[in-house]
């Protein structure tokens, strides 16, 4: 802490008092010195050096520090020349000169000493950059900087903050700054007035400050802090409830995605497709493949892999249907075994052809991070998208089933195969299309899962049983049932998890399903009538 105080003092000097951002550079020799110092000193000493660099006022300083923080600042063993690493993959790295920014091409790793950095230093750097950013013209940058200040405000900075708040035109930024200041006041000065500002704040630093205040000897302060804490706790409870619900829904939507394809192949066609999980896996691998084809554009690749994943899985599914399943019409148990064999083959195929190792699927920026409702509740974006995606897919399937010719035929075939055939519906064609559809949806699930979990040969296995549970629980042949079952199972699981623990929760859910099936063998929404009876 001490150092960061001193540091932000220096920084205040450099950033508040420095006239504007005029172009200015120190002599190369001096730069060389600074960087050498950075390279040769221990982590402890490095902090001081970092500050010297920051306050050198050299406008390359920020670039150096950033590269340093990103572990990209290095020195050539031979010449002692300082370099910035542009790409550090493989055994030869492309680098440029730290001072002249001239590109030096590829250099073997053996000849480069990267200048070590650690978390502590990274914190310092963030501090520095944030204080610098308080002056930035860009509001968002100022906001993040202001937020970062919470809990790390120094005495000197505290003195300046009021005027900064005055000068600040953006309400949100000044609000953040005020809170940062209040936290400082409560922590350092035990200022009761400040406590009021903190009451209701969901920021963890604020809570920490209040907790500290509650422990203080000043009774009045302690009481005030306690009161503020209560109001916060109230809010937190709500937020956490909301959070759990969100977790439940997102887990549920994953289950729905995984199961909905099965609801079609199993529910509508009565085909037990044990290779369903592997079709999901194929979808996920398609995403990976797309990202390999379009390096540097993970987002685009992801979007493209939605149709691609659907196609790949659908084709694979149709292949399975033609080669195996059609020979086993009306022998569900044999179908189960055969498709299980197919699943083994597909897994091993992926292992041999691609690799037994998991593949890296990059999450595009617009999907990573989380949507901040408030400082205690933020919804992770990737799962938010998955929930949305699941609903869209579901709606799409509903449309196909209700509104299209295919849907009509499918329902006809399910109700009474012979009758449908005699009415001129090509049952075989319907089978192919239906199975293709179901498998394709599995592919979509894979695309979505690639953003949440491993993309590896075992991906499918971990979902197949859950999927079947969802379908059976929901009632075979009923898409709404599947949706409801998936979401409710997901939520139940998340509700149980806090007190039962992850494993027990899963076991309990399984047992619950088993018992439920005993009670209602045909699930939540059974098909009735003589046709349905054994």
């Amino acid at each position, binding site marked *: 802490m001490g150092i960061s105080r001193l540091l932000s003092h220096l920084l205040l000097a450099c950033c508040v008092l420095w006239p504007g951002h005029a172009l200015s550079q120190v002599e190369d020799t001096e730069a060389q010195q600074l960087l050498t110092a950075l390279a040769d000193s221990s982590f402890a000493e490095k902090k001081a050096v970092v500050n010297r660099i920051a306050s050198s006022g050299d406008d390359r300083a920020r670039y150096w520090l950033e590269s340093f923080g990103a572990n990209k600042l290095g020195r050539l063993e031979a010449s002692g020349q300082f370099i910035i690493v542009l790409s550090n993959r493989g055994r030869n790295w492309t680098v440029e000169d730290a001072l002249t920014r001239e590109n030096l091409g590829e250099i073997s790793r053996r000849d480069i000493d990267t200048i070590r950095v650690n978390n502590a230093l990274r914190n310092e750097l963030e501090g520095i950059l944030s204080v610098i950013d308080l002056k930035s013209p860009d509001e968002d940058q100022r906001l993040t900087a202001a937020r970062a200040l919470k809990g790390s405000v120094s005495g000197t900075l505290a003195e300046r903050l009021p005027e900064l708040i005055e000068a600040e035109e953006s309400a949100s930024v000044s609000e953040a700054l005020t809170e940062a200041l209040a936290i400082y006041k409560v922590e350092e000065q035990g200022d009761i007035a400040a406590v009021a500002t903190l009451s209701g704040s969901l920021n963890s630093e604020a809570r920490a400050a209040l907790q500290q205040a509650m422990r203080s000897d000043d009774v009045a302060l302690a009481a005030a802090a306690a009161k503020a804490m209560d109001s916060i706790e109230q809010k937190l409870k709500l937020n956490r409830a909301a959070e759990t619900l969100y977790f439940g829904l997102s887990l549920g939507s994953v289950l729905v995605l995984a199961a909905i394809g099965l609801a079609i192949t199993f529910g509508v066609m009565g085909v037990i497709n044990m290779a369903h999980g592997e079709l999901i896996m194929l979808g996920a691998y398609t995403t990976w493949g797309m990202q390999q084809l379009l390096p540097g554009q993970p987002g685009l690749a992801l979007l493209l892999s939605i149709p691609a994943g659907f196609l790949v899985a659908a084709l694979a599914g149709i292949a399975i249907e033609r080669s195996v399943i059609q020979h086993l019409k009306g022998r569900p148990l044999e179908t189960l075994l055969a498709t299980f064999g197919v699943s083994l083959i597909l897994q091993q195929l992926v292992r041999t052809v691609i690799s037994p190792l998991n593949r890296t699927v990059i999450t595009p920026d617009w999907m990573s991070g989380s949507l901040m409702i408030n400082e205690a509740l933020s919804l992770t974006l990737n799962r938010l998208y998955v929930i949305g995606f699941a609903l869209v897919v579901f709606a799409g399937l509903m449309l196909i089933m209700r509104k299209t010719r295919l849907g009509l035929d499918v329902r006809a075939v399910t109700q009474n195969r012979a009758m449908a055939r005699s009415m001129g519906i090509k049952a075989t064609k319907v089978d192919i299309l239906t199975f293709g559809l179901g498998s394709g949806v599995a592919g979509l699930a894979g695309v979505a899962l690639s953003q949440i979990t491993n993309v590896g040969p075992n991906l499918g296995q971990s979902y197949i049983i859950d999927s079947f549970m969802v379908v059976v629980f929901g009632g075979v042949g009923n898409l709404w049932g599947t949706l409801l079952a998936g979401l409710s199972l997901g939520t139940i699981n998340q509700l149980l998890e806090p007190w039962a623990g992850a494993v027990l929760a899963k076991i309990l859910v399984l047992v619950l399903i088993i018992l439920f099936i005993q009670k209602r063998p045909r699930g939540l929404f059974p098909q*009735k*009538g*003589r046709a349905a*009876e054994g």
Partner: protein
Amino acid sequence: MSIFQQLTNRDQVFDFLAPEVSPVDVRHGPILYLEDVSVSFDGFKAINNLNLTIDDGELRCIIGPNGAGKTTMMDIITGKTRPDTGSVWFGSRHNLLTKSEPDIASLGIGRKFQKPTVFEALTVFENLELAMAADKRVFPTLTAIMKPEYRDRIDEVVQMIGLKDLRGAPAGILSHGQKQWLEIGMLLMQRPRLLLVDEPVAGMTEQEMERTAELLTSLAGKQSVVVVEHDMGFVRSIARKVTVLHQGSVLAEGTMDQVSNDPEVIKVYLGEEA
């Protein structure tokens, strides 16, 4: 009988485990009695306030167009389908709605399905053996032994249903008509008080039909028989009393002539044929 068998054959060890089949009480009233029975599947009323009584020893034919609820009625009597409302009594003692299929069967109600269902993997002989009236609980069945008198009875029935030469052949290879007969034979083995026979002559030749007719009529009196049939000729040949079902309830009842002159019936049913 070996010790082991003594032990496994539990009803002989604990007599309270012995089956209690109280006889069907027909001293006052009919053997089968359905009142205000209704059942619906997904809104479609398959049976609608059906009232039906079968007297002891009666031979009753039930006719009606497709979807009139004939088979569903049988499902209800045999406990396969539970009605939404109404009551079903076997004699004046047994409320069938509280009983499971096996109970009902062992009370003495035998059923022949519309589509002949025999155990195709088993031989004709074995089919009849399984149908034979006996203690049908697990352990007695496990330790059951083919006694000579059982075989005589089976042979007798095999004779009756004209499958003597096929007694050792798997039922799967039988012709449709033969399966019908075998199933009827299985009914006989059960020695039921009440036979429910669903379309017995479907896919039979003329002679087969006649023999079936003889058989059924000969049964009547000793046992009560309910025949559901489409074939008007056949119905005429055996029917004493006919019930016409329509849209899940009784449309008309009486002798063949009465019903066939009934304007309602002509409209909804015979009308179609004529």
